[in-house]
């Protein structure tokens, strides 16, 4: 179901630039006369060499070196002040490269950072945990070998394209059958085919939401169709089948639907995903469930929302399945949580299946809806962490 505004997943996702390449040469320093400033010796510390000591007080942040060679850089941070302190290494835009928190007075903590590209960073001690902290510039020179998951990402992209192609073909096939039933005037058969014909689309929808008017023409609800656009597609036929009865133009609407579905299926196969767009799509599908399916908004006449729920959930699960090797390598705990939460939500949804068919949305109790919502919140919170894990390092 397209929304009036483009969902984040439908936009071109900003490409993550490797941290060190994106840095501006000049960094704004915050020193002023009445404020403490960072001080440091000028010795360079080598990557993999001895640690850089950081003496953090309530008013100063003293580093033994402000340059280092690429590689593993180690900071040994000692709090010799009276407030709880923190130490940050920032890239451009205050993006945290790494940090160590809760350094209580008298305590010394070690921070190891892997930096593979040259660039200028910002260090900051933050006595009392608030504010921008006591900042200084930090320079990294040279390059170091990367521990890369590039080949795994490439494989994930290939796998996801194959999944999209297969769902797109299924969408065309299911739509053909459905359209034939509508044109034959077989209302009962058309109703029985409706939900499952749409199902593949619900699994891959974020891929194609940017194809102009095609998605609203196929899947737009009457209340979100833009001014000047006709109400067509699946939801128009849903209204005919369940509420108004087939109309004079139902056959023409069905023909147009098949043409549009064939076109969008072909276009979907040409989309070049990235690891980030796949992860963003997995999240967007769950957002669809939260805002459209679990509320019973999408299928207001057929009440087949649980089929769409199933499609969105399956699409999200498949998107993350192709990313599994990348996630499992970089954040095994997250992969474990994703597995557990997908299983939990799937089993709760399956409770509402009778034989091969889902029960009507109208049969759900308030307690059923809360149970599904609680489980969906848990899963969505984990899925929202995936982009940060699969982004280029």
């Amino acid at each position, binding site marked *: 179901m397209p929304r009036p505004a483009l969902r984040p997943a439908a936009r071109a*996702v*900003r490409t*993550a630039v490797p941290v060190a390449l994106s840095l501006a040469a000049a960094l704004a320093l*915050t020193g002023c006369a*009445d*404020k*403490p400033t960072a001080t440091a010796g000028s010795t360079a510390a080598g990557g993999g060499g001895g640690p850089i000591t950081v003496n953090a007080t*309530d*008013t100063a942040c003293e580093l033994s070196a402000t340059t280092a060679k690429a590689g593993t850089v180690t900071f040994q941070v000692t709090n010799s002040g*009276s*407030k*709880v302190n*923190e130490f*940050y290494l*920032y*890239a451009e*835009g*205050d*993006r*945290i490269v790494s*940090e160590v*928190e*809760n350094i*209580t007075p008298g305590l010394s903590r070690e921070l190891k950072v892997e930096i593979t590209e040259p660039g200028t960073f910002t260090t900051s*001690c*933050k*006595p*009392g*945990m*608030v*504010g*921008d*902290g*006591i900042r200084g510039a930090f320079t990294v020179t040279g390059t170091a070998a990367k521990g890369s998951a590039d080949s795994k990402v490439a494989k994930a992209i290939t796998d996801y394209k194959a999944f999209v192609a297969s769902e797109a073909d299924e969408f065309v096939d299911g739509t053909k059958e459905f359209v034939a039933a509508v044109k034959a005037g077989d209302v009962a058969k058309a109703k029985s085919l409706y939900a499952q014909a749409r199902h593949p689309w619900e699994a891959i929808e974020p891929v194609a939401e940017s194809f102009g008017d095609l998605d609203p023409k196929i899947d737009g609800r009457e209340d979100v169709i833009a001014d000047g656009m006709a109400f067509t597609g699946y939801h128009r036929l849903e209204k005919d089948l369940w509420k108004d009865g087939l109309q004079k133009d139902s056959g023409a609407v069905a023909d147009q639907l098949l043409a549009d579905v064939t076109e969008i299926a072909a276009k979907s196969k040409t989309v070049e995903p990235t690891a*980030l767009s796949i992860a963003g799509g997995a999240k967007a599908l769950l957002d669809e469930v939260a805002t459209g399916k679990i509320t019973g908004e999408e299928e207001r006449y057929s009440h087949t929302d649980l089929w769409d729920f199933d499609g969105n959930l399956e699409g999200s699960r498949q998107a993350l399945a192709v990313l599994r090797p990348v996630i499992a390598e970089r954040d095994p705990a997250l992969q474990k*949580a994703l597995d557990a*939460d997908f299983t939990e939500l799937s089993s709760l949804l399956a409770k509402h299946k009778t034989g091969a068919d889902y029960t009507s949305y109208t049969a759900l109790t308030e307690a059923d809806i*809360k149970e599904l919502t*609680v*489980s969906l*919140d*848990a*899963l*969505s*919170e*984990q899925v*929202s*962490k995936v*982009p*940060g894990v699969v*982004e280029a390092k």
Partner: protein
Amino acid sequence: MSDEGLSRRRLLGASGTAAVAGVVAGAGTAYAVSRGDDAGAAGAPPSTAAPALALDAAIPFRGEHQAGIVTPAQDRLHFVALDVVTKDRAQLRQLLEDWTRAAERMTAGAEAAPGGLVGGGPNRAPEDTGEAYGLPASGLTITIGYGPSLFDDRFGLASKRPAALQDLPAFTGDQLDPRRTGGDLCIQACANDPQVAVHAVRNLVRLGFGVVAVRWSQLGFGRTSSTSTAQATPRNMFGFKDGTNNVKAEEPEGLAQHVWVAPDDETGGGAWMAGGSYLVARRIRMHIEVWDRTSLQEQEDIIGRDKKEGAPLGRAKEFDALDFAKKGPDGQPAIPVHAHVRLAHESQLGGIRILRRGYNFTDGSDGVGHLDAGLFFLAYMRDPGRQFVPMQRALAKADVLNEYIEHNGSAVFACPPGLKDGQHWGQGLFA
């Protein structure tokens, strides 16, 4: 309430922190903890001034007792009751540890996580939701409590259940809504800026998805009790001063006797509660439209105090002792026999007192044109079965006020003692 106090409260609600900061600075007592901007952070002088009246100051998170109980009552509340939805004991313990970290940071005026606003870069969902960035700590306290249902067989905590932690009995006239009643856990967030209190609850709830789910929640827009002699007595939605005779922070003996659980109180598995306190929460809807049509004389007779000064009937000043024997000009008791202050007074209840910390609320209207407003009653005590229960039984039976109120939400929680350095909330319970 003094004019000064009133103007501060209004100012805060009307125009946010900039104005408040000005007032506080003018009062000369400020120690502002700045959140986010660098103005007060690294260069700020260490805290030396007493922060009692600085509305934007930070309240220490750690100590012998949890903050948010005898802390001078802040103006705003966001209270939430939660159910544990995981079956995994380790997940619950981890959440209590994660909550401790985030709560300590937020009460200091910091983001819920380091670099929570933008530090995760463009592709991650920010770890802090952001609406309190740049606001001062605003007296935020975050107080946690455990409900009786947490100590069932799910997490192996049955043997840790304090004997005094029991579900409240049904009281005459209760109209409890299951959707506003009970809960495995509660979080009370109080602050002098509502945005700061809401931010705290929102971020803790977010950390808990998959482990806990919100059961019900309540916003309070104005305190109805003073918990310190430094505070003026506020008014409730009936327009009367409320909590004049409250147990106050400046009464250590009263607190020890009525509020804090003593080491001898719980000798079995509930011994971890020593230094803690039990919280009773009741959502009391007030039928204010009906009340507002009631004559002044009748209002004062129902409460037992005069409306303007708050003095007990028959006396002149707010803090004058109640004289239950005194007769009025008509020969009847000056304080009527069913007046609220008489029924709730310690002299009528065998010396029972509680520390009240309630908030006025209005949750919009009720669909038939009446305000859904009232008192969100919060009270801390050493043993609900010996304090709140007999007090409420007496009130439910005879209080004339019952014609104007309806208890439609209820819960009881065991709030553990304060945390020492290095401790987190999961430790006492899961030791």
